Each structure stands twice: as structure tokens, then as C-alpha cells.
């Protein structure tokens, strides 16, 4: 019990310091120089070059995350369905293929994708980042959906077939709705991982296609590190709101629509 409290303190300490120091009247971390709101003002007014770069990086991050999530949700769900439904040698190979990116450290994926792009003389840019992110997201989506499929009740599919539904109908009216939450959960995981990714993006990014983590990294080295604190607080507030909001929705759905 004591250990748990210690761990919680350990987990929250840097976040708390991060929030407090976002009000520090100093460009650099370190000593405390007094309270100020100027970093928030600078960010929200988006006039300075630094602030503009941050918002551009944020837009890039979100575009990449949306695209990578969309593609990986489709491919990952199909992969999960194939692995669950068919028990052949092909699927064993498929399984190894899907699980491999989960174990491989990102720096390996980063360097191998960079080498691929260099070899194929492909220009680095947002597209290459999207491709890179999709590659590791597929595995996560497949994993989550596969987990849901294992609790899936196949008799529903058989019943629909008996009643005359064809393959497409079964897919659209039965599978997708029931797997919906699982796919959404996988998509959410993929989205989070894409937004969080630093190493792979660092290797495969091109001109003008900086994402938020890469921008934060360069701001730590030259620029105004305290802006990062203010930015993080804004993001924490947004994330917390989204989480609480979605919890409310899920709870509402639970009570008004019982599980099938």
C-alpha cells in the first residue's frame, strides 16, 4: 500500500512541476522568477514565429494521426478477422507478421523505413510519416480487435446466414456494429501512439513536416523551453476533458442500451 502511494507520487511529480513552472517568468527551466501568464498569451495569440511553428507542428501531428488511424483501423480489423476466422498456416505466418512490430524497438523501425525511402528515392515528407505510423498502428489495432473477437458470439453470424443474409450484409449489419467498440478502442490506441511517436518520425520526417514531439525536441535545444510547459498544460486540459467526456458518454450508453 505504501509502495503504491510512493509510485503515485513518483508518477505525478514531474507533471505537477511542469504545470507550476508554466507560470514561471523565465525563458529557461531552473530557477523560479515569479508568476506570469505571458507564455499562454504568446501561444494563444500565435503571432511569434515560435508559436506559429508550434501550431503548424500540431496540425501536422493531427493530420498524420488521423490518416494513420483511419488506414490502420481498416487494415487492422481485416487482419484480426482473418487471424480469428481462419486457422491455417497462412494465418500463423500472418500472426507472426502482425506481432513483430510490437516487439521491435522503434529505432529499428525508424532506420529501416528511412533506408527503404532512401533506396527508393522517395522524398521525405508528411506522406512518409503517415506510412511509418500506419505500419506500427496496424499491429495495435489488430491486437485489440482480436481480443474482442475472442469473446465474439459466432452463433449470431450463423443465425443471420440461416435467415438468408449474404456475406456483405452479415459484415455490415452484424460484425461491424458489434465490433464497433473494439475497433474504436483500437483506433484510439493507434491515434494515441501516433501522436506520441518521436523516434520513428524523427527518422522519416522531411522539410516542413515537423510533428509536435519533434518540435518540442528542437525547442528544448534552442528557443523558449517554458513555452513547452504552457503547451503541455493546454494539452493536458484538452485530454482530460476528452477522457471525462467520453467516460460520460460510455456510461450513458451502458445504462440506456444494454449489451447484446
Amino acid at each position, binding site marked *: 500500500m505504501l509502495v503504491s502511494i510512493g509510485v503515485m507520487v513518483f508518477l505525478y511529480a514531474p507533471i505537477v512541476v511542469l504545470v507550476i513552472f508554466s507560470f514561471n517568468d523565465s525563458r529557461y527551466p*531552473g530557477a523560479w522568477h515569479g508568476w506570469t501568464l505571458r507564455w499562454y498569451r504568446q501561444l494563444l495569440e500565435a503571432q511569434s514565429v515560435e508559436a506559429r511553428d508550434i501550431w503548424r507542428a500540431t496540425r501536422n501531428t493531427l493530420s498524420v494521426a488521423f490518416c494513420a488511424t483511419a488506414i490502420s483501423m481498416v487494415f487492422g480489423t481485416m487482419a484480426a478477422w482473418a487471424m480469428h476466422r481462419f486457422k491455417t498456416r497462412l494465418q500463423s505466418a500472418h500472426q507472426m507478421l502482425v506481432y513483430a512490430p510490437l516487439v521491435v524497438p522503434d529505432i529499428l523501425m525508424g532506420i529501416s523505413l528511412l533506408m527503404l525511402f532512401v533506396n527508393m528515392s522517395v522524398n521525405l515528407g508528411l506522406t512518409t510519416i503517415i506510412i511509418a505510423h500506419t505500419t506500427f498502428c496496424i499491429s495495435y489495432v489488430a491486437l485489440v480487435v482480436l481480443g474482442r473477437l475472442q469473446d465474439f458470439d459466432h452463433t449470431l453470424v450463423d443465425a443471420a446466414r440461416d435467415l438468408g443474409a449474404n456475406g456483405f450484409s452479415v459484415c455490415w449489419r452484424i460484425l461491424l456494429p458489434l465490433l464497433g467498440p473494439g475497433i474504436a478502442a483500437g483506433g484510439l490506441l493507434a491515434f494515441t501512439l501516433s501522436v506520441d511517436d518521436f523516434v520513428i518520425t524523427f527518422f522519416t520526417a522531411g522539410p516542413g513536416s515537423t510533428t509536435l514531439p519533434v518540435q518540442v525536441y528542437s525547442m528544448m535545444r534552442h528557443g523558449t523551453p517554458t513555452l513547452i510547459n504552457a503547451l503541455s498544460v493546454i494539452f493536458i486540459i484538452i485530454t482530460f476533458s476528452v477522457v471525462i467526456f467520453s467516460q460520460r458518454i460510455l456510461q450513458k450508453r451502458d445504462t440506456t442500451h444494454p449489451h447484446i
Partner: protein
Amino acid sequence: MNQRKWREWAISLPSMGWLVFFFVLPTLLVCSIAFRPRSINGGIGEGWTFGTWLDVLQPSYPLVVWRTLWLSAATTVICLLLAVPVAYWLARLSREARNWMLLLIILPFWTNFLIRVFAWWSLLHSEGWLKHTLVWMGVASPDTQLLYNEWAVLLVLVYTYIPFAILPLFASAEKFDFGLLDAARDLGAGKLRAFMSVFIPGISQGMITAFVVVFIPALGSYAIPEIVGGPQSEMIGNKIAQKVFVDRNLPHASALATLLALVVLLPVIYSIITQRKQKRTGGTKRQ
């Protein structure tokens, strides 16, 4: 049968095709580049050679490899040591309290990874309040640097990977039958003995998962040693990045990457082989 086969292929093709082209192919490419020489202007030269591998087996690299291994191992051990009591405590809470506590534990990790490393960088800053407090307490001198050494790297590694340890351990602990602990106590075992001999083996599956999801990614760390580490605490990841981005020696970087891949694959291959052996001999191992 034919139609079924066709359907299976159609559904599997997108993900398999994508992963083969963007995962397997690049990995093989990296392995092959490791056998090519470096061209003068920093690209990939013609022909094949073992020269790059001879370069890599220099006397200085084993140090980096050793450091990578021990930092990852230390991170894993510390994470496990901290996560097991937490998982135990969580599993014993009521369902509602448990959900809230899980949410509380996961919440800090909803902040961006790099921002969390940045938070530690500013916390450990030599002019920061933590350093000043330590000086005031007499534990540190005004000139000490908390950053840019192996301990800072270890600290931030543990911080980053602890949730990866807590989650699988908790998943295992949730399924654990706590009645067994009571039974052990009835039979006369002390609290600690019961914990060690009954609980720990009971969550062994979780522990194995936790070990794998912490140790393996930790081996490939790049950002953490780059930001809070110093020149004496570099890991393989830093070396690979340096070879690619600064020294522009792509074959050398590829050789290092292949080495890392081998180190990562070995435990995986080992576990696949032992699992196959288990299936063949049939049944579970005796505890």
C-alpha cells in the same frame, strides 16, 4: 473450398502486403546494407564487404552494448519490483475504486512522451528547485549535476516503462484467486512467505509479459539517453542515430541496427521454441 481460400487471401492481403512491404522488406534491406561499404560522400557504396562488421567489432562498442543491456535490465527489475505491490493492491480494491485508481495511474501517460521526458529534464535541472532543495539539505553541492549521467537515464526509463509493467501484472492479479493466499495463511505460512510462494508464481504469466514489454523496447531507447544522458551514458540507439545523422555512415548504422535486432529477437525465438516444446510434451510444467 476454393472460394473460402480466395476469401481468406482477400481479407489477409491488405495487412500482410503492407507489413511485408513496409516492415519485412526494410528490415532485410537494413541487414543487407550492413554488408556494403560506405561510399566517400557518405552514401552506400557498390559491392559487398565484411569490412563494416570488422569496424563494428571494435573494442569500444562492447562497452555501449553492455551499458544498453544493464540499463534495460535494471529498468525492468526496478519496474517489476515497483509494479508487483501496486498490482497486488489494485487487485484487492473494490471494482469501483479499482477503475478510478487505474485511471489515475494511466492519466499522467496521456501527456506526450517527449513532454514527459522534458518534464524530468527541467525537474533535474541544475538550477531547479529540486537541486536547490538537495543543496539546502546538505545532500548535494552547488556544483553537482543531476542530469547527463546514467542514473538520470535509469530514472526516466523507469518512469516511462512503469505503466507497461503495471498493466499486464494487474491483468494477471485480477484473475488471481486470493482465496489461495488465505489457504496458505491457514496452513501456517507467514504473510511474506505466502506472498512470495503463492502470489508471485500465480501471476507468473503477467510477470513474463511485463518483462518482455519493458526490457525489449528499453534496449532500443534513443530519446531518453539523448536528452537526459551524457556522453558516458550513450546506448545503442544513440550510436545508430549518430551514425545516420552525423557521421553519415549508413552501412555502419545498419550493422548496429542488425545487431540490436538480433539481441531483441533472441528472447523471442527462445520463447517460441520453448512454447513449441511445451505443446509437444503436452500439459503444463510442474511448479
